[in-house]
């Protein structure tokens, strides 16, 4: 086993060696500007870009012409949300989203809210899904866009996007979905799911950082976005700027690998994930798996370990890289808004750890992780006044008057 062990694939992934191999010529020999139409340097760069466009499109059942290159999913989300809002503002000023979206969706929506739009943030249930009935009730004749993510980055919960797509079609409302965590991991077909705009990113699927894509539907309906970045009119005028050719080629190769490996890989990572979950739940009391038990991304496990705090727990296995919803790991000192939106108390949010597995995770690493986490939790519970009160003194912690500072 190689240390440290990486269990944070929802944050980012290593570049697959096959991806790097595909990219390298585009730094040296094929360095041309893909927009140079009058010489071979440009033509060859353009060929690389167009092959990559096909590769990304085919993962989601789209045509290559419907793919716009961006710098990443944050930019894709910004173009989709602000671009659609500005393009269709004569039609209406209402947008619907939900509370556990990534900040790259929430913040553009809040920006629009300050600029004359009305935004509805739908709540989620305990497993993290929206209620389709509430989505239906939130729609008005002014609604122009629904933006709801596919898989959640913290808790892995999948939203019912097929139902959402169907409802949006019936109402003539555009549907954007942030597929950062599901692109290349979960089957997606933009036609069958009724998706009009889709954001995805290279570095979540073993491609390079700094490159992403936005799918923009061209037929029934033909969707248009006002650009966020103005300039040379690249990418059908929706995203100006010289294309990041090596990055794009890498994302294309990464997408192709995902398409080939997805069926096998999603089963393998899900079974390792389940092994991790079962190993932890069989050896520790008072732990809760956050998110949906079935409808979730194949590689994510989010667990709250009652009576211990997430950051100190992570210090207990510092040779394993994970994330926590604890406030102490964020600059804001606020615990995860996603976990809070599920109705978890702040105490459970502080006690949460996100494990996210990947292509190169081994069973040996999973077993080692189980051992280390169990040991660390037990050690910290010995040190926890909450554990002592609840387990030794039999006090119901919810009845305690805390002297909060």
């Amino acid at each position, binding site marked *: 086993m190689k240390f440290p062990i990486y269990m944070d694939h929802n944050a980012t992934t290593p570049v697959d060696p096959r991806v790097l191999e595909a990219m390298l010529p585009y730094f040296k020999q094929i360095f041309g500007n893909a927009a140079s139409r009058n010489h071979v340097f440009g033509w060859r760069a353009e060929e690389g870009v167009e092959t990559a466009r096909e590769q990304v499109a085919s993962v989601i059942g789209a045509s290559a012409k419907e793919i716009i290159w961006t710098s990443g999913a944050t930019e894709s989300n910004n173009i989709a949300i602000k671009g659609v809002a500005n393009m269709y503002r004569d039609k209406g000023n209402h947008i619907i989203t939900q509370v556990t979206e990534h900040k790259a969706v929430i913040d553009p929506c809040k920006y629009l809210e300050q600029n004359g739009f009305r935004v509805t943030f739908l709540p989620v249930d305990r497993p993290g899904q929206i209620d389709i009935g509430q989505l239906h009730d939130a729609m008005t004749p002014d609604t122009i866009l629904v933006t709801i993510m596919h898989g959640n980055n913290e808790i892995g919960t999948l939203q019912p996007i097929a139902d959402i797509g169907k409802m949006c079609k019936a109402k003539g409302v555009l549907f954007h979905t942030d597929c950062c965590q599901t692109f290349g991991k979960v089957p997606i077909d933009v036609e069958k799911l009724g998706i009009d705009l889709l954001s995805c990113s290279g570095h979540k699927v073993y491609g390079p950082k700094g490159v992403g894509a936005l799918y923009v539907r061209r037929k029934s309906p033909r969707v248009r976005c006002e650009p966020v970045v103005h300039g040379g009119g690249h990418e059908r005028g929706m995203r100006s700027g010289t294309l990041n050719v090596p990055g794009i080629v890498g994302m294309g190769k990464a997408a192709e690998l995902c398409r080939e490996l997805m069926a096998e890989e999603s089963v393998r990572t899900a079974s390792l994930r389940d092994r991790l979950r079962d190993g932890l739940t069989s050896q520790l009391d008072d732990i809760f798996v956050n998110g949906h038990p079935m409808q979730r991304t194949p590689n994510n496990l989010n667990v709250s370990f009652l*009576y*211990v*705090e997430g*950051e*100190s727990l992570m*210090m207990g296995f510092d040779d394993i890289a994970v994330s926590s919803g*604890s*406030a*102490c*790991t964020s*600059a804001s*000192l606020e*615990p995860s808004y996603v976990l809070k939106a599920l109705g978890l*108390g*702040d*105490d459970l949010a*502080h006690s949460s750890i996100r494990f996210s597995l990947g292509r190169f995770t081994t069973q040996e690493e999973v077993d080692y992780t189980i051992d280390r986490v169990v040991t660390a939790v037990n050690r910290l519970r*010995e*040190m*926890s*006044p*909450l*554990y*002592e009160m609840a387990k030794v003194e039999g006090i119901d*912690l919810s009845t305690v008057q*805390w*002297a*909060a*500072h």
Partner: protein
Amino acid sequence: MAYSNKIIDHYNHPRNVGSLDKKDPKVGTGIVGAPECGDVMKLQILCDDNDNIVDAKFKTFGCGSAIASSSLATEWLKGKSVDDALQIKNTDIVKELALPPVKIHCSVLAEDAIRAAINDYKKKRAAEEQPADAAVK
């Protein structure tokens, strides 16, 4: 968070973890913080007849800095008189552990815990010195 070696040492080898008998009149107990805020510290002192702290124990739910701050506090408390113990300032803890700015509240909590434990002890002593019927009131 990149922590100082001192914090990591206290986290890996916490001093004086444990509990003293809360009902003992010579024991003062302070519990501060709240689970919702992400840290709860329980700090206890055991005093001799001259109000000198002969033992100190802690249990902490919280981040590495909170654990280290309370661990350090118990080390400093032992051997001090309760009045000298009240002189311990959160800034001393910040300095000793090289706490990063976002973790200064952990040291504040440790100072609060020290004060709460000493107040509890002093209250018990005062009640002891009163006639029995006055203590009931």
